[in-house]
């Protein structure tokens, strides 16, 4: 076991870890604004077409959406647990929990695929096969454009997260981390939690709109 020493530009391991966390949070702040722009578009059009958005929301797949929310919340728990074990230096335990987290991510994407397939079947995909009669057809199409944009970009983030988590699982299994050095696990955890945070806000905006109407 080699001695853990910071890179030469840092005074200590603590400072090095702190700078890495700072960088991750700066990146996450840019991600907040990236999703924020799309959420602003959603807010403006929902304000303009409240009835159309309510109608559109009733066509979303509430069961799949809710199950996927449970999956992502649970995966946040498992990766937080993994980071906790990493603090104690238990590489194998960390690897197993990261593997479980990645698996949750895959199930999420699988269910999302089933959902997209059903929406394709119901002619809800703007630009490809969208078809809806009635006074709100245009506004519903606008909702589904935002829906595919938001969930598509979110799904891309989940995919990147799965790759990151899986790579960290392999590295943890091989003993790449110790209780003095597990920054990559911590940062991967932050990214995964962020993906969960985005979904926490997408859930009511996509699946719960119009349910009481």
């Amino acid at each position, binding site marked *: 076991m080699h001695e853990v020493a910071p890179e030469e530009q840092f005074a200590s391991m603590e400072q090095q870890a702190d700078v890495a966390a700072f960088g991750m949070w700066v990146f996450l702040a840019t991600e*907040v604004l990236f999703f924020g722009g799309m959420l602003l578009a959603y807010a403006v059009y929902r304000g303009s*077409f409240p009835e159309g958005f309510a109608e559109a929301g009733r066509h979303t797949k509430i069961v799949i959406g809710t199950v996927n929310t449970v999956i992502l919340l*649970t995966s946040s728990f498992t990766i937080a647990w993994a980071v*906790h074990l990493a603090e104690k230096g238990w590489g194998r335990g960390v690897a197993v929990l990261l593997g479980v987290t990645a698996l949750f991510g895959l199930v999420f994407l699988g269910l999302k695929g089933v959902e997209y397939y059903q929406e394709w079947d119901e002619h809800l995909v703007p630009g490809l096969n969208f078809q809806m009669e009635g006074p709100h057809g245009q506004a519903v199409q606008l909702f589904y454009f935002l829906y595919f944009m938001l969930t598509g970009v979110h799904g891309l983030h989940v995919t990147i997260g799965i790759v990151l988590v899986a790579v960290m699982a392999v590295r943890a299994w091989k003993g790449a981390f110790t209780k003095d050095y597990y920054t990559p696990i911590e940062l991967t955890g932050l990214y995964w939690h962020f993906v969960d945070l985005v979904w926490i806000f997408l859930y009511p905006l996509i699946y719960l709109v119009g349910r009481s109407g």
Partner: protein
Amino acid sequence: MREYLPPRSLVLTWIALLGLLTATLTLAYVPMGIYNLIAGLSISTIKAALVVVLFMKLLDTSPIVRVAAAAGLFWLAFLFSLAATDYMTRVDSHIPIVERER
């Protein structure tokens, strides 16, 4: 072996998140007009705060890290508030006038 178990704080956070999910799902089916949206977003904000504080442990980080995180929310607030000064004060536009939900 017991040391492999997750700390109580993580388990409780997870249970709280699932509880809040149940609450937001149930409330969505109760007709409350605009308060449906307010309830949904309020519960999401509480869930997000739980994740940020107890899973991401933001409050345990150094001040500069917290400033970076706060900057994201700060500029998001700018984005929404400055856009609102436009969209919420438009009298005529190609977009139909906002009709408030009762």
